[in-house]
């Protein structure tokens, strides 16, 4: 084979590999275009999660004491939201108590959101613990607040609060039965289409993303 043909074969192989890579990414990653219309938004959003390591410019009010030293789960979600919606603002409730988050604190957080007139709240937490109190709260307040919650990253047949009625469960697995109102993505790997690109993985990001995407301009 002549040198020219060899070069051509290598180039074709390279193009094919690149093509396969692009198709693979397209099938396995959700691309998110940053939303720039937040300035016109009148909906108030909230996030209930664990502690924060420091102040965030997109938090309008919070009960957090910033005691954490490392970047926390809550920090990462707020960072993601600032990537997705540049000038977003969120009410943030730190539901962590002694390094755990229990139903009692979750309920207090939900009520805190309601008292602050938050219209949509996102909870990127999951438990197998069913609480009648939480279920009742969701039913009683469904007209006043829209709750989004992440399904567990690992598939679970019991998954709360995402599985409660009047909660919009957000996940990425088709294995379990979900409610009609739930939003199931094809996977939980996200790339925010900004400069530089940022890669996020986990259902934790899907719930707040979905909350803002579905309500920001409504």
């Amino acid at each position, binding site marked *: 084979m002549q040198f020219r043909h060899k070069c051509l074969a290598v180039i074709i192989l390279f193009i094919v590999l690149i093509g396969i890579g692009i198709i693979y990414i397209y099938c396995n*990653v959700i691309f998110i275009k940053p939303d720039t219309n937040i300035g016109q938004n009148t909906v108030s959003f909230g996030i209930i999660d664990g502690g924060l390591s420091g102040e965030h410019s997109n938090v309008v009010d919070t009960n957090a004491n910033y005691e954490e030293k490392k970047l926390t789960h809550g920090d990462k979600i707020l960072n993601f939201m600032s990537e997705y919606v540049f000038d977003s603002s969120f009410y943030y409730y730190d539901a962590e108590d002694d390094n755990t988050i*229990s139903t009692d604190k979750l309920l207090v957080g939900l009520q805190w959101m309601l008292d602050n007139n938050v219209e949509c709240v996102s909870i990127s937490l999951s438990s197998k*613990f069913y609480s009648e109190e939480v279920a009742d709260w969701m039913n009683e307040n469904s007209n006043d607040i829209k709750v989004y919650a992440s399904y567990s990253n690992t598939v679970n047949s019991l998954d709360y609060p995402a599985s409660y009625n009047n909660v919009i469960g957000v996940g990425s697995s088709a294995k379990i039965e979900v409610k009609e109102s739930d939003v199931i993505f094809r996977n939980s790997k996200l790339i925010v289409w900004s400069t530089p690109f940022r890669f996020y993985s*986990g259902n934790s990001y899907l719930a707040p993303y979905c909350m803002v995407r579905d309500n920001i301009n409504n």
Partner: protein
Amino acid sequence: MKSLKKILCFMLISALMINTTVANAEEVSSETENLQDHDTVYVNGVEFDFDYDVETGNVIVQGETDGSSAEMLLETDGTAEISINNVGQEDEEYNLEIHDLDKNNIDVDVYDGGDLVESYDDYNDIIEDVYEEQEAITWTLVITAALIITAVCATAYITYESDVMYIMASQFYKSVTAAKEAVKKAAKNWYYPAYDNTSKNIVYICPSKISLTSAAKLLKANGNVYSFTSAMAKKAINYSGYAPYSSNGSTGEVHKIKGKLVFYHWHKGKTSSSGVLKKSGSAHSLYGAPISY
């Protein structure tokens, strides 16, 4: 008990009660025909298969992780066996006694070769009231041709939690409810042959049920039968052609023997020519729960 044992037992036992949180008790009122004979549930990504045997009422649960496979056989009498096969390690077996499965009253004991190794008497023993963050991984990618390769690699960077696993099984709850109903039904309708070894003060009760007619025949032939209530015990004697007799008069007899389990019972009675009801033959129509002194 080793951690893995605990996890798998925990996982399997919890199947017995988790559904009480999601199922309306009225909806699972033991309508056997409504039970599904197979179901699949997921716990932390692990798939568990449930098979319900409609004929026997038994339930088999099977699950498999990377290092272990576990199987539980739940029988309708409220007992269960768990066998765990560990790759490269010793296999394990446990027996369970399930005394209560209500969300507010959990009472399950786990035995290893006859030794009690774990007891669950609180709902929180099974499911902790803890909310977990859903893993979040983030990093910045430089916009270069390496993006594609990095992104592909990144997809493999996902790790999954693999802590305590447990399972949900509506079939389990339904099965236990069905078993309770079966016992209730048996309590109203069936008799059991009994053998009273007076010299050793031991009573054996055959687990195979017999009808009222058969029970009456046994009593007539001076055999012994067991039933659940005093009324049933008296009814069997009446069917045998005799009147129920007790030295206590209107209540059943019981012979107190220290250190032994004894039963209340009625004897066959016959009215003598003087008009007095007297004991006839050696038959016992036992009833109720055993009593110890």
